[in-house]
Structures are given as C-alpha cells and as structure tokens.
C-alpha cells in the first residue's frame, strides 16, 4: 500500500515548506499531508559551501517528510480490488464478500457501508 500511495503522492512542496497531496480517484477530494517547515527556511546560506549543505539537507528532510506523508495517507486511502483505483475511506465500502469502491459497488449491485461516513476525520 505504501508503494501505491508513494507513487500517487503529488509533491506540492515549496522552498520553505514540505507538503504532499493525493486526490481520491472517486470523489476527487484532494487530501494534503501535514505541512512541515524546512529547518533552514528563511536562512540565507553564507557561502557556496553552505548552499551545498543546505541543498543536501533539503533533500534529506524532503525525503523524511515524504515518508511521513505516505504513512499518513495509508491511514486514509484504499485500493479498490475491482477497478484498482485508489480511493478515500469515504468512497470505500465494507461489503459482505469483498470491500470495494462506491462506484464498483453500484455497478455490481453490492451493498456496503463506507469506512468513514462523514468528513470529520478527514483533512481536506
């Protein structure tokens, strides 16, 4: 699941803030990860050497932030075993034999309850 989420994760980081997002394939809601600041945000490197160090540091923190975002996203996204799309908890139904997305359930005439019925638990 981590690999799937990681592949879908959209990088919307800026120079100072790391942020990633995923769009639900069903409802189209965009989920954004918790924003974390680059530890050297707003600090101007005093030399070219520092610039190189800052760049490397940015890469490292970016990677960590991405891992965190993946972890967060795996709490929320599921892969529909029928259509193979990645959908949010709201669009994913717990069914009798196989859990599936809302769309597939309606196509196949299956009944089920969404994992998360409301928007409360979701960061939109």
């Amino acid at each position, binding site marked *: *699941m*981590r690999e*799937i989420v990681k592949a879908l994760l959209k990088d919307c980081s800026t120079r100072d803030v790391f942020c990633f997002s995923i769009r639900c394939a069903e409802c189209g809601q965009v989920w954004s990860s918790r924003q974390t600041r680059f530890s050297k945000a707003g600090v101007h490197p005093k030399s070219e050497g520092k610039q190189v160090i800052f760049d490397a540091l940015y890469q490292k923190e970016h990677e960590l932030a991405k891992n965190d975002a993946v972890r967060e996203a*795996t*709490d*929320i*996204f*599921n*892969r529909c*075993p029928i259509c193979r799309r990645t959908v949010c*908890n709201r669009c*994913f139904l*717990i*069914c*009798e*034999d*196989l*859990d599936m997305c809302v769309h597939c359930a309606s196509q196949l005439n299956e009944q089920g309850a969404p*994992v*998360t019925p409301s928007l409360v*638990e979701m960061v939109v």
Partner: protein
Amino acid sequence: MGRLKEILRLTAQIKKQSVSMQRRLLLYWLSMLLAIVAVVFLILNITGVFSNDAQKAGETLQLQLDNAQLQVNQHMESLEANSIALSEQISRTLESVLTGNGLTTEDLNDNPELLQKLQEELLSRLYMTLRLSPCSGAYLVLDATTNTSSDKASHSASGLYLRYANFHAKGAADQDVVFFRGIPEIARAEQLELHNRWNLEFDTDLFPGYDAWMQTEVGRLADSCRWTGRFRLTDTWEDVQLLCVPILDPSGKVCGLCGVELSSLYCYLSHPELNSSFGPMITVIAPVEGGKLLLDKGMAGSADGTFLTDADMLSIQHGRYFNTYSCGGDRYIGLHSQTDVNSENGGLSVAVLIPESTYAACRDTNRTVLILCSLLLLAATVGLSVFLSKRFVQPILQTLQAIRSEEVTGEGETGISELDELVAFVSSRSNAKALQRENALPPDMEELFRSFADRAKTLSTAERTIMKYYIDGHEITEIPELAFISIHTVKKHNSNIYQKLGISSRDELMLYIDLFRRLGRLNELTDTL
C-alpha cells in the same frame, strides 16, 4: 532529564535481553580479578613499595644542594678574590711607607705615629673592600704593637676592623659602618662611629695558629687563603668566621693578616629556608669530620621551624636516596657535598637538611591517601562481585524452583540464554504432556469452544479474510500493506468481528485463536461451513 530517561529505557531493554551464561561468567571473573588486583595494590601500598617519596625527596634535596653549592662557591670565590686584592694593596702601601723612610716592619713596634700614618693610608682601601664584598666586616692586622712593654704585648697586634653596625638584611648599601678595631683618631677624622666594644688593637689569639702564620713562607696568596672556625667575637653576642689572607712585607715575609668577616647573622639572612613539599629546607655550611657534620664549627642558614641549633654535631648515616643526620633526638634527612673552601678545620661542606618529622608526616599522608584509594577500590570490586554473583545465581535458583513446582511459563524471563532454552524445552515438554492429557476437555470448556466456533461462522467473507491474517500471526499494522486497504478499514472490520464473536479486544481474539491452535481445531474457525 530526557537523556536520563533514554538511558534508563536502554538499560531496561538490555536487562530484558538474554545474555549468555559465558558472558556473565566472564564479567564475574573480571570483577574477581579486579578485586585481587585491588588487594595486591593495597598490600603494596601498606608496605610502602609503591611510594616514591624517598626518591622524590632525594631529588629535591639534590637539586637544592646543587644550587646551594654553586651559590656558596661563587660567594667564597668573590670574597677570596677581594681579600687577595686587599692584601696586595696593603703590601704596596707598606712598601711605599716603609722603604720610603728606610724602615722595616720591625720598626712599626712602639711607633704610634708610623702606625697611625699607615692606618690612615689603608682605611679607605679597607672601607672599599667592605663595601664591595658580600660580607659583614673587613679587617687587617699587622704583626706590630704600640707598646711592646705592655703585659699583653705578646698577643696584641695593631690593625683596622670595620663592621656593619646592625646588620639587618642582604645588600649592604644603606648599612652603617662602625669602627671596631684601630686608632680612634682615624675614626674621628673619617667620621666613623666607634663600636661600643671598640678596642685599639687585636687580640691575636682570635686567629688560630696566628704565630705559625707569621712564620710560614707563602708562595701564592691564593693558595694561602683559609677561613677560621666560627667563634664568638670578643665582648659581643655575634658569631663570626674570618677569611685570613697573609700580608707580605717588602722582603716577602708574612707580616700580618687581612680579609673579610662573615657573621652568623649574615649567613642566616643569605640562606633563607626554602619550603619544599617535604618541609622546610635548611642550608648548612660546615666541616664534615669523622662521619659528623660539625655545625658548631660552621654556619647555618635560616632554620626557623626546626630544632637545629648552631652547637649541634650531626652524625651522618648514608642512605640510598639521601642521608640521615641525627643529633640526640633530632633527626634530619639531607645531602651534603664538599666545597672548594679551606678552613682551619679542613674543607667545608654544604649540606641541605629537612627535618625528618615533616618528611615522615608528608610521606605518611601520601601513603594514607594511596591506602584509602586502594581500600575504596577493593570495597567497590568486592561489592561488584557480590552483586554480580547474586545476579548470576538468582535466576538459576528461581528457574530451578519454578521447574520443580512446574510453573514454567516458557517466556524468556531469566535473562540467561542457556537457561531460557532450558525453560523453553521444559515448558514445551510440559505443554505436550498437557495436550496429551487434554483430549477430554471439561464439558463447559467444550461448550465454550463450540459456541465460539458457531459464532465464527457468522463472519462475512471479508471479515474472515482479516481474521485469517491474525491467525497467520500478522500484526494489525501489517494488514494495510497486505490487503491494500487503509488502517481505518481494518479497524472497522475489527469492530464488526469483535461484535459478532462476542469479544471485546484483539487480545481476547488472539487468546481464542491460540487455544484453538493448541487443540488442533483451528480449521473450525477458518472453514466456512
């Protein structure tokens, strides 16, 4: 604070981990070895083998002895050089005064006018010698007297003797010079104050072997310099030593003596005691004769805080690092060595002494500290040994007890890997036995299992898929990865499963799964019908 917590957490974790018996034994033996080392260290300290205080004291003494010897030699050399120069100057003056008038030294007797004329000529030179030399007085004496008919004539001789009045410190620039011996008119003319024990002439008995001096043939003046022993200056409280250089008359015969004076006070002030780490160090300049340091014939530097007096004769015992000098109950440690200086008692030696009592106190303090340290080390290592052996034996005893009472749990809790293996073995065997015995379950238990299995049949396919993961030993956090669903989805299934099975937690679920597995009836949970 956070760091401390982290450390505590780590130690707790380490404690939980099993350590092999071999490593524990190794630790145990190491602490034993350490304890033995501590005991040896302690014994060595008590016997004083480790102490290098004697060697250190010897080195300190040697260093100071070298310093003192250099200082004394330089001092004496400069005094001898100045006195020889004085003697030569007097000889020249004698020659010009006597031969100018067609006289010999014999004619000085009973001739006050001639003596006064001579002394007038010589005073300034003597004054200069006193001022320029590191000494406390300067004198010249001629083998002649103003009144040969006096009953003292045989040991009375005319001369000049200048001294510093009240010697109070080194560096004589501001000292008052007083007139101790000589013709008073000269003192008055030069505005020199007479000493309160002034005398016109010298008592030649002051100079040991004075008559012999007057008879000797002198080759080089430098070879004839000699110090007197220490003596009390007539009618005063002061002890002095005089450097004697012969004065030669125009015919080359000895006709008197001249030189400088060193008082005990001068010596006292110029050799202050030094503080060493072993106590006060005293410098002594005295002859050594027959294995004794003759302090009564020499001089000592400042000796405050010790019982050394200038009348002592110290017998010398040679040692490895230093000698011991004793006189009655007083003992000193020190070193001495011969100087180039001649005196009537033979060669003078310089000695550096430290009271043995302060040295011993210092040595004992050092030794006590070492002994205390090794005692502490011993206590610590013995404590460690006791602790380790307890830690080593306790789990074994506990496990034995547990095995005996058949309460083995099979969980790795002894902290010793070999024991854990044993426990695991024993418990698996007892489990096997229990299983063999189990075949007939109590009826109510059987009922419990059946109803649980019945309830398991009501699970949906999706829920059964999730439970299968648990049966296969997966953790809840692993399921999203395996099933490509979110953790929320897993939890939702969980709560449905618990509700249907009539349990309240995953632990309870796992307990049932474990029981079914042990009874070999897992298929009752997984099979759909």
